[in-house]
């Protein structure tokens, strides 16, 4: 019966608005799975493990971070190019319960491990662990966790797409993506430091 219901939600979603499938306490997980597997997966991949660096992996991402970003998309408080092009529309009709359920759905998926390896990745590991004191850049791990697994509203970075990580760091640096904290952290970051961090964190 549960499987049948989940299928019904799936049927309802991609060919109708995701907002129509309102999540309640009882059916939240099924609604989230329906939205994710019928709509979100077209860009973010099955179970959130996207194949394209144009779209971030969501599998194993922090639930609070996903919920915060979906709220930001819905309210247009995040306005980098891809947010405008894709997520403003996709999040516009999501209600709070659906956002919470989607966040839980992706957070519960198995994350992708980073590749880690090579001299460049070693440089990135050093920046991630120690920061760059000469540039007043604190260690990334102080917010994102020792293994870049994320923490609450601070996202998992480990195993993310290299293209995506690079694009986000560049967007924070230029303030194209709004985040006072990350702009301060990245404003003096060099291209080579970004390349090193991405090499350490990403899996492509």
């Amino acid at each position, binding site marked *: 019966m549960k499987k049948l219901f*989940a*299928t019904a939600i*799936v*049927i*309802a*979603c*991609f*060919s*109708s*608005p*995701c*907002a129509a499938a309102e999540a309640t306490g009882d059916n939240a997980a099924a609604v989230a799975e329906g939205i994710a*597997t*019928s*709509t979100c*997966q*077209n*860009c973010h991949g*099955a179970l959130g493990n996207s*194949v*394209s*660096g*144009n779209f971030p992996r969501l599998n194993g991402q922090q639930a609070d971070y996903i919920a915060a970003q979906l709220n930001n998309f819905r309210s247009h408080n995040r306005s980098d*190019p*891809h947010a*405008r*092009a*894709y997520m*403003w*529309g*996709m999040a*516009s*009709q999501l209600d709070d319960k659906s956002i919470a359920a989607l966040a839980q759905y992706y957070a519960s998926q198995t994350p992708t491990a980073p590749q880690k390896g090579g001299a460049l990745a070693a440089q990135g590991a050093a920046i991630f662990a120690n920061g760059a004191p000469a540039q007043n850049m604190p260690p990334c791990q102080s917010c994102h966790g020792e293994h870049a697994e994320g923490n609450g509203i601070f996202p998992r970075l480990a195993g993310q797409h290299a*293209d995506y990580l690079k*694009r986000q760091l560049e967007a924070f640096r230029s303030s194209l993506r709004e985040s006072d904290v990350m702009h301060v952290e990245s404003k003096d970051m060099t291209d080579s430091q970004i390349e090193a961090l991405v090499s350490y964190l990403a899996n*492509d």
Partner: protein
Amino acid sequence: MNVHLTRGFAFRAAMQALAVLVLLSVPKSADAVPSYARQTGLACEACHTVFPALTAFGRTFKASGYTLFNTLKVQDIDKLAHSTLSLSDLPPVSAMVMASQSLEAKANDSNSSKASTDFPQQASLFYAGRISDNIGAFIQITYDDQSGSFGIDNTDIRFADVTKIDGHSVIYGVSLNNNPTVQDLWNTVPAWGQPFIASPALQSPVAGAQIQGALSGGVAGLSAYTFIDQSLYAEAGVYRSALQGASVAFNGNQDNNVIAGVAPYWRVAYEWDFGNHSLEVGTFGIYAELQNPTTPAGGAINGSLQHAPTDRFLDASFDTQYQYTDDETQISLTAAWIHEHQNLSASFVQGFSTNPSDNLDSYNVVASYFWHRKLGATVGFFGVNGSNDPLYFGTINGSPNSTWGLFEVDYLPWLNVKLGLQYTAYLKFDGATSNYDGLGRNASDNDLLFGYLWVAF
């Protein structure tokens, strides 16, 4: 693609042969329609690399029946909470305008001009978007300056749904459309392949396969399809003639190229998406028995459709498409090969063909590069090769062979506005490089420079 409709399908013998030629060269209307963007809240780049070429997401959106939406709606339910109404709060209406200037290498004759201005070359109105939860449409009404009139253009109305079977995402649906391949998802098929737009003044070779536009607009097709895991696509359907401006319901109707019974259509394709890359290989085709056939040379049989003889055409095609897409770079490589076997039993008996059967191969290879979806260049190579048949093709040496190149540069100041400069260069035209018409005209005399503005809003 659009002009054929407004030119009418009740054209008689000679005019129909001419129409076939024109159909092979007229611009293809894009399904880059802003009402889809308004309906989904997604910018053009979600569905298009650069319009009208589709991204992987755009293909899924189309296969899903154009129904994804992220806007408010007017709705109603019955006492059992079943939906009885689900209307978009805004009608999915859009418009498109094309304007152009053409310059041919050499005027057709002393009474013709090398230069021509087309404004609008084409103007279209679209109903493009969701109709209900599982039904969506792409319906285009087009004004064409060559005919000076409006007409029904590309139409694709579809039911679609998505489910999950054994862990696989399965989109399935039914399309009702008026042009074989207009329902397709890749930019390799005749309805949506390169060139996306061409000059009304461009001379086109006499020969072309039926599926390359000859049937479009005057048919009704019903096909069922499935798209599994956004990778495996399979479709089967049938087409019947649906004459515009005429009817087969009356005795004595002598329209030409009317499908006897139904024409089966098939499409199978597989797409691999990896990273920012996408690769597709596939096949498509149609088998059509045409009553009262016309020939490229202008021959026509005009009998009652109750008893009309038929020529039979089997088009079998193979296609492939590669795309690389990120924010900075959009690369597309497409190739298609269409083989047509022509059983000309009716035309042969009438003395309209030299051979009882012919073969025709049409092919194209096109490469396109865009920078930031703003500046782009396209290079293409096209060709037609076929049996030597002086009576059927009507060329001076009996050969239908033609080859030509396409060169285009584009600038998009906005994602929905394209400025293009296109050059078509013929290496061979209707069987010869020089004096192909016996009057001293060379293939290269048909070379054409074409500048255009294409706006969708």
